[in-house]
């Protein structure tokens, strides 16, 4: 067995060690700088520059639950550090530098600043309820900052408002915005539904960040009549609603991914009428048009979601 030259191994080890050492020392230096930073005298100092009419104003924080200082969990409660409860010790932020600029607060929540420390501040108080699985969620992995969606200083956080919330989601999911205008869609554009009716953006446990364990369990929240169990089940229906439906929108009726009869014919070929080619000329054929026109297969087989009729084996009853 050939051995690698010792010198090359040593060199590699040295490089790795130096790299790790560099990383650790940088991380430690960052921690140290936060630890040694000093708090200012609280909101009364912050509000000198960030009150109403000044830029950037932060006074509306007092219109939010965060700003209710009488509440024990408020960042402004006695014994806490007001604005710096979230922004970190930022006494140095008050002092102008030689060039007239100011140092940023310890945590500024500005775009481009590291997401991890930003989110850690929020999670310090909010890692319960439907945020338990945040750390493993797609949004956490993608380094989405809490403030990308939540406007902490706004009197009404758009992320908590049905109509405004979707605009936040569409920023990164523009295709879904377009789907809400398609011929068949859930009523997001009317504000009658919110993205969070089906999705938990903080979740890291369910597929597609859904609010329930499975796709079907999520759909059954509003469509419990499809839940069954039925005497005669249609296998793909009980497996996954999205095999046939696109929940965000479709140019076919009932959110279907495909137009019947082709929707059905891509899976069924028992011979006879289910597998017959229904062409554009079928529409003129008075004998065959019942298989194609109107509701197509569902003219007769209307119980495609399952039937509890003892004679419903073919979804006719």
């Amino acid at each position, binding site marked *: 067995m050939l051995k690698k030259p010792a010198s090359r191994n040593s060199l590699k080890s040295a490089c790795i060690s130096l790299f*790790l050492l560099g990383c650790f020392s*940088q*991380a430690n230096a960052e921690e140290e700088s936060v630890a040694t930073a000093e708090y200012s005298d*609280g909101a*009364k100092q912050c*509000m000198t520059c960030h*009150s*109403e009419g000044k830029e950037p104003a932060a006074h*509306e924080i007092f219109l939010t*639950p965060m700003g*209710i*200082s009488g*509440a024990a969990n408020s960042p402004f409660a006695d014994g806490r550090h007001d604005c710096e409860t979230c922004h970190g010790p930022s006494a140095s932020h008050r002092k102008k530098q030689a060039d007239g600029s100011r140092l940023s607060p310890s945590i500024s929540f500005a775009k481009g600043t*590291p997401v*991890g420390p930003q989110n850690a501040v929020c999670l310090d108080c909010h890692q*319960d*309820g439907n945020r*338990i*699985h945040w750390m*493993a969620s797609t949004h*956490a*992995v993608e380094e989405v900052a809490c403030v990308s969606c939540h406007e902490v200083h706004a009197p009404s956080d758009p992320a908590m408002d049905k109509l405004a919330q979707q605009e936040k989601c569409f920023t990164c999911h523009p295709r879904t*915005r*377009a789907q809400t*205008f*398609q011929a068949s869609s859930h009523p997001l554009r009317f504000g*009658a539904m919110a993205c969070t009716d089906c999705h938990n953006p903080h979740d890291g*446990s369910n*597929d597609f960040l859904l609010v329930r*364990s*499975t796709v079907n369990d999520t759909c059954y929240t*509003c469509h*419990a*009549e499809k*839940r069954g169990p039925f*005497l*005669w*089940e249609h296998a793909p229906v*009980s*497996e996954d609603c999205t095999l046939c439906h696109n929940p965000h929108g479709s*140019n076919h009726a009932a959110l279907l991914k495909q*137009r019947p009869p082709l929707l059905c014919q*891509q*899976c069924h*070929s*028992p*011979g006879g009428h289910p*597998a017959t*080619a229904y062409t*554009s000329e079928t529409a003129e054929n*008075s004998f065959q*048009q019942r298989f194609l*026109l109107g*509701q*197509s297969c*569902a003219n007769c087989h209307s119980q495609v979601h399952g039937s509890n*009729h*003892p*004679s419903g084996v*073919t979804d006719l009853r």
Partner: protein
Amino acid sequence: MKNFSRKSAFSIAAFLPVILLGAHSTTAVADGTEPAIYACKACVKYTGWRGSIDFGGAYISDDSYRFGDYRGLEELGLYAAVDGDAHYRNLQGDYFDLYARDLGYDSREIDTRVGNQGFYELRFGWQELPRYLGYGTQTPFLGVGSDFLSLPSNWVKANTTSGMTALDSSLAVAPLKTEREILDAGITVNFLSNFSYRFDYQRQDKKGTRPMGAGLYYSNASILPAPIDYTTNLIDTAVTWANQRAQVELGFINSQFDNGNSSLTWQNPFSSRPEHATFRAALEPGNKFYQFNLSGALTLTSWMNLSGQAAIGEMTQDDPFLPYTINPEYSDLPLPRASLDGKLDTSTFNAAGKLFARINDGLTFTARGKWDERDNQTPVDRYTPVISDLVPIAPRYNRPYSYERQQYSADLNYRAHRVIRVSAGGKQQNIDRTLQAVERTKETTWWGEVKVTPTYSTEFRVRGEWADRDISDYLQPLDGGPVDNPLMRKFHMADRSRDRYVIEFDYMVTAALGLNLAYSEAQSEYKNSILGLQQSEDQNYSVNLNYALGDKINVYGFYNLDTIDADIVNTSSGGSGVWDAATRDRIETSGVGLTATISEKSSLGMDYVYSDSNGRISVQTAAAEPPFDPLKTNLKNFKLHFDYAFNDHWGYKLYAEREQYESSDWAIDGFGVDGINSVLTMGEDSPEYSVWYYRFQVSYRF
């Protein structure tokens, strides 16, 4: 105007408490008990009441069920337009929030929260949601909305719709409408510093009619206005313990669905023997579901986090069976049991672990596992179905399908440099099924992604995914029923290779101008499917633009193009008569809009959206066949709103919306109720409308 009085009364009644509370609105004066923060003179002391009431009228220029869909504005005329919100805060953390929207419309909604921050919260919500499922629908059946549909006494039966000579005189408008009412109530209580208890109750009532096809074996069918009378009660409750290192939640969900109608009976409009004069179908049976959830997360160290969830539940359904048929000829056929006694055990277990390798916080590793089982315990029996109340067929056994899904995935994210993040991962998904053509499918997915952020204002992302699905042997399940062609592969249980690519570019051209370009493509190839779905391709292009003109004006624009293609092969008779179908859907959506603060007193907003879809279908046999006419929809929506404040309390709001919609569908257009010889339809046509919606509201702020 006919809606006005009822809706106005509802609006005023619902909003009365807010009006009364508003009359007493005061701002609390700081007293000696106030916290230290109130020594801050520049801090705003928002306590007491605040809110707004917007009341006035709306006008709809034309009747349109499609425009009224979800909005509740389907009829030409005047509507009461009432919205508002009210909020109360005090220094002790007591709060009250109320949001009310569209109280004068059939789509009204109220959401209320009251509580003390950090201690408790009570919630109440009410929502009404109207839906229209058909446009211009009519039917000769009497008793629409009930579980028995009869025909007029002078009805003339015939073999085809063209022979039903009393049809025209019997037709009556039958809107296919549902109304959903949702009541939400809940409470959250925090106790013992780390515990919280949440209880939510929801009741959904859905009433109305929906179209339901009712076939008579191979010969003819009727589209019936089937009744909907659904009630779903849902309880969702959980107790949580949480601190900064660990969180645990134990939850329980109970959902019960009841249907006010167990069956639909109708008189046969087609010529028939006397015993086939009446038919009956089952409607959705009542069912129950409960689930226990245990969920938790633990931050073991600053670089390791674990979370998991276990959910165990049961679905049951035991509504009494109908007889095999209403046909007296076979009324004595014995059923194997009186009800299904259907029972499904569901269990979901998932676990996730995230490891932050402490290399400058630059490396994270996330692993997840999920096991999800649907174990169908429903008893299997031998049934002798009487197909469409006409003919008994050979006995069949019911098939209670079960599934077990296992998913494992691992992701690695490495921030190689401040500007580059490299990610890669893999996922394995196995699905085991019972009583189906394929016992196991196994899909392996690999993906890689590079995200480059050269500056704070620029981000470029490229992602590729490559998935391969293999299946176990393809079987023909034998239950006495028709057997699929052995060459058919159902697309979700077929060998498949799937590639997906995403390219995204975000660029803040200036602090005011943001641009996002995105392209994604997914291609699936069903490599071993001789019959069935052969391939599908899905492409998406999107452009998004945002421009802030100073701090007063914001302009946005977007363009989105979706193309969805699929190719299918099937055969009408064994190996011969092979045909193929191609579907090509193209959906284009674009929009522009702006919001502008004109002055301290006024603001303006405008949105315009254009959405156009074109669905082309071609089915080819040995003979050259012309393609179908395109399926088309075209939506143009324009909104304009202007708000003006006379002073701190009073103002007004103007809103105008125009929506124009055109669509064509060769499957329904122009056939009327009797245009399809063997199907008595409800005469639905593709919707087409042009509606103006104006709203004027006086606004009072307190």
